[in-house]
């Protein structure tokens, strides 16, 4: 193809003509002499990535982060993070002459008097919503397919930290415009902080530089929002992607795919085009959303005033689930030595998210400890092949989802004509019962899917061909799976339940890790115990034998088949059609 180096492009009969040498070559040589990137680029530009739609979910997060950086820089050019009181004199009639903070006035200015300002604001906000959402679906994909297992546990931790930081970044951004909703959010955060025993009030005074609201919170949150957290996010994203390159991408099992190789397409030109194209898809989608769908209409909220509040005061969606926990929490308080301990705030909004986040980060380590699996894994698992793990995440999702719904209880009550009290009572029970039900159903569902896989491997798939035998009985013909499909289904490890060493060694001395091992054995037995393992070689050979008997049994029918019977999957039927005569 390439003709820039002057070599003949074909083996044609006409003599090759030397082309003019390209100017890119000497320029590249000049750069390589000084930077030495050619050897690295040569290796990495052809780096192979496997192809599957679910591997692109993290990319949505990456590209929406790029959109956040671009639109965010635009917004900083006009936003003034100041709580100085000004009188609004801009284009929006409904607020003209009203006293407000400079931060809110500049947000209105961006919305109404800066060209494309409102589009940028809305794109920035939609991108933030999609950024956190795509991190979460990426996390779910990684968990359900077992891509977090060794050697990728630390990348899981980094990813969890990215989710946490993304959430905090979102909250600080939500607070900056200093509208009524923002201020209500900061007021709530102040209350959360103050619910912490002993340190709460000190932390609040430290953060606000005195009593709420003071005049320093907006500038401080601004520094956190545009400098501190984006810096951390960039560093962690870089680490996340470097580890991705270092570990190489996981792949689905299949013919030719092993723990030692990666089957897919090279970075250049295929993935550069696909990923680059996907960036434009993400950018375009966010631009359309920013242009067409109103988000955070700050001019409708009015400036923050501690005496005012609006119905439907909610955080952005990713803070919705702790808000839901707060909403359904019964009003528990302890009064002791003249101090009030607000468990009704402290437990749902400080303890619960901290606990949930710790569990999230520890998941790979918990599973590795239970299963005792210390091998490296580069081939992914189908969710059904890890029933207990899949069920665990579905239970966590159910818990999250119910809490999330509880966070919108007033909107649900309003729009579905329900009683907000009944929703609250229901949720109080459902957040405990729902995850258990979801766990049990998912686990059994996965196991029955495994059973189905095994059945298909041993008895073939349902062909849809109905056979009538000599007695007039009917049966559906099952056909053996294609070989590559059968390979893919069997390309998984047998689960091994952990068996503890004998509790007492040869000299009658109890093992020091005895109790821990027994717990681990119990958990491991539950984790793997009910799983359906893939068929053994003997079972497969026996099933093949059965198939041969079937074929032999039908052999006398050969040549006497009634019309249509040739479509039994064992004969070449190219060019044949079912007769229309009866």
């Amino acid at each position, binding site marked *: 193809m390439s003709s820039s180096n002057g070599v003949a492009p074909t083996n044609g009969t006409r003599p090759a003509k030397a082309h003019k040498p390209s100017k890119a070559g000497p320029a590249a040589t000049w750069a390589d002499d000084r930077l030495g990137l050619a050897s690295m680029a040569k290796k990495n530009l052809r780096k192979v990535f496997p192809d599957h739609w679910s591997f692109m979910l993290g990319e949505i997060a990456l590209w929406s982060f790029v959109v956040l950086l671009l639109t965010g820089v635009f917004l900083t050019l006009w936003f003034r993070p100041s709580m100085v009181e000004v009188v609004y004199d801009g284009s929006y009639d409904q607020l003209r*002459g009203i006293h407000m903070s400079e931060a809110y006035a500049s947000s209105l200015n961006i919305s109404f008097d800066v060209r494309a300002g409102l589009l940028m604001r809305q794109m920035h906000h939609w991108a933030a919503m*999609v950024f956190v959402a*795509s991190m979460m679906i990426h996390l779910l994909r990684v968990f359900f397919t077992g891509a977090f297992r060794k050697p990728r546990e630390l990348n899981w931790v980094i990813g969890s930290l990215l989710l946490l930081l993304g959430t905090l970044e979102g909250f600080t951004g939500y607070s900056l415009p200093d509208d009524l909703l923002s201020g209500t959010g900061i007021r709530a955060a102040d209350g959360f902080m103050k619910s912490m025993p002993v340190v709460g009030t000190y932390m609040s005074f430290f953060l606000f530089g005195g009593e709420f609201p003071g005049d320093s919170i907006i500038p401080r949150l601004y520094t956190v929002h545009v400098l501190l957290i984006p810096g951390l996010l960039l560093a962690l994203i870089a680490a996340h992607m470097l580890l991705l390159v270092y570990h190489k991408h996981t792949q689905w099992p299949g013919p030719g795919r092993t723990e030692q190789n990666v089957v897919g397409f090279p970075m250049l030109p295929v993935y550069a085009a696909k990923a680059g194209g*996907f960036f434009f898809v993400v950018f375009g989608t966010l631009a359309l959303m920013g242009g067409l769908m109103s988000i955070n209409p700050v001019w*409708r909220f009015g400036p923050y005033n501690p005496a*005012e509040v609006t*119905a*439907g005061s909610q955080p952005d969606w990713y803070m919705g689930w702790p808000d839901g926990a707060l909403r359904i929490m019964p009003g528990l308080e302890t009064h002791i030595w003249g101090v009030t301990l607000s468990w009704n705030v402290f437990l749902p909004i400080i303890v619960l998210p901290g606990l949930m986040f710790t569990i999230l980060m520890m998941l790979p380590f918990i599973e590795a400890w239970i299963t005792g699996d210390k091998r490296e894994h580069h081939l992914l698992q189908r969710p059904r092949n890890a029933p207990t793990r899949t069920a665990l995440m579905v239970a966590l999702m159910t818990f999250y989802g119910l809490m999330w719904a509880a966070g919108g209880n007033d909107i649900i009550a309003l729009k579905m004509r329900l009683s907000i009290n009944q929703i609250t009572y229901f949720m109080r029970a459902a957040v405990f019962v729902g995850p258990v039900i979801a766990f049990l159903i998912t686990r059994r569902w996965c196991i029955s899917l495994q059973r189905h896989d095994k059945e298909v491997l041993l008895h073939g798939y349902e062909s849809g061909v109905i056979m009538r035998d000599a007695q007039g009985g009917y049966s559906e013909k099952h056909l053996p799976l294609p070989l590559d499909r059968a390979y893919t289904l069997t390309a998984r490890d047998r689960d091994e339940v952990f068996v503890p060493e004998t509790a007492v060694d040869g000299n009658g001395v109890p093992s020091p890790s005895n109790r821990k091992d027994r717990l681990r054995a119990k958990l491991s037995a539950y984790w793997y115990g009910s799983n359906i393992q893939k068929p053994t070689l003997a079972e497969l050979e026996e099933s093949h034998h059965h198939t041969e008997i079937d074929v032999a049994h039908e052999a006398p029918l050969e040549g006497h088949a009634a019309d249509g019977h040739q479509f039994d999957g064992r004969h070449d039927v190219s060019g044949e059609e079912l007769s229309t005569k009866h």
Partner: protein
Amino acid sequence: MRLTQKISHRIAGRLSAGRRSRVAAPLVLVLGLLVTGGMYAALSPASAQTRTADQDLVAKGRALFLVGCASCHGKNAEGITTVKGGQYGPSLIGVGAAAVDFQVGTGRMPMAQPGPQALRKPPVYDDAEIAALAAYVASLGPGPDIPAASEYDVSNASTEDIARGGEFFRTNCTACHNFAGAGGALPRGRFAPSLQGVSEKHLYEAMLTGPQQMPVFGDQVLTPQDKRQIIAYLKKNEETPNYGGFTLGSLGPVSEGLFAWLVGIGSLVGAAVWIAANSARSRRKQA
């Protein structure tokens, strides 16, 4: 000067002479009552204006009331108490014509069925019938009258009026009705309804009479001018275009989150499936 002194001395003398008369004490009492009553009528804070209603209109209203309203509110609008001591229908004595005009004019009354709250629906009675009902209820006892058109006319509202109305709205109304007047939930299935598309007169009457769950914003809390400014703010918002695009119901972050997931994540995951399905090496057949 001297003449007035002389006359006042003479009057004082006459009065003084009659102060031991038998009729003096009852006369003073009657005079005192008249002055107190007159002063009260003139200076009372309660806006108990009673217009002498046309007797025919009242009679017509009473006929309608007995057919359509009395089953819950009682034959004399005295209210009906349930066995458990609750109210089947509250007493309407003293609620005034404005309350009737609001409840019946917005279709809330008569209620279609019992429930936590009467719902807005197309009105059952026409304007003449509503006026008759209002006249009848107003005749039962003094209460707020239907506001005159000039009281809720906001066609001449200035920008200052609108901005000030916004301040009143955020202070008094948004906590229940939401920042855009889209409505909000209240305990036990009750709710603050949407204010979008409600007529100026009904907005004014709602503030004046406090229907259902709503508190009364009497003229001492929000003066007629304040009420007008709030209405001006709401009407200005209705005629202002939605600068951000589709409002998604103006319900705040819950509906925004829903759209971020359904539209944003939905379409982007769809795009990922599409990109992955079009593999580099598989040439799609030209149809």
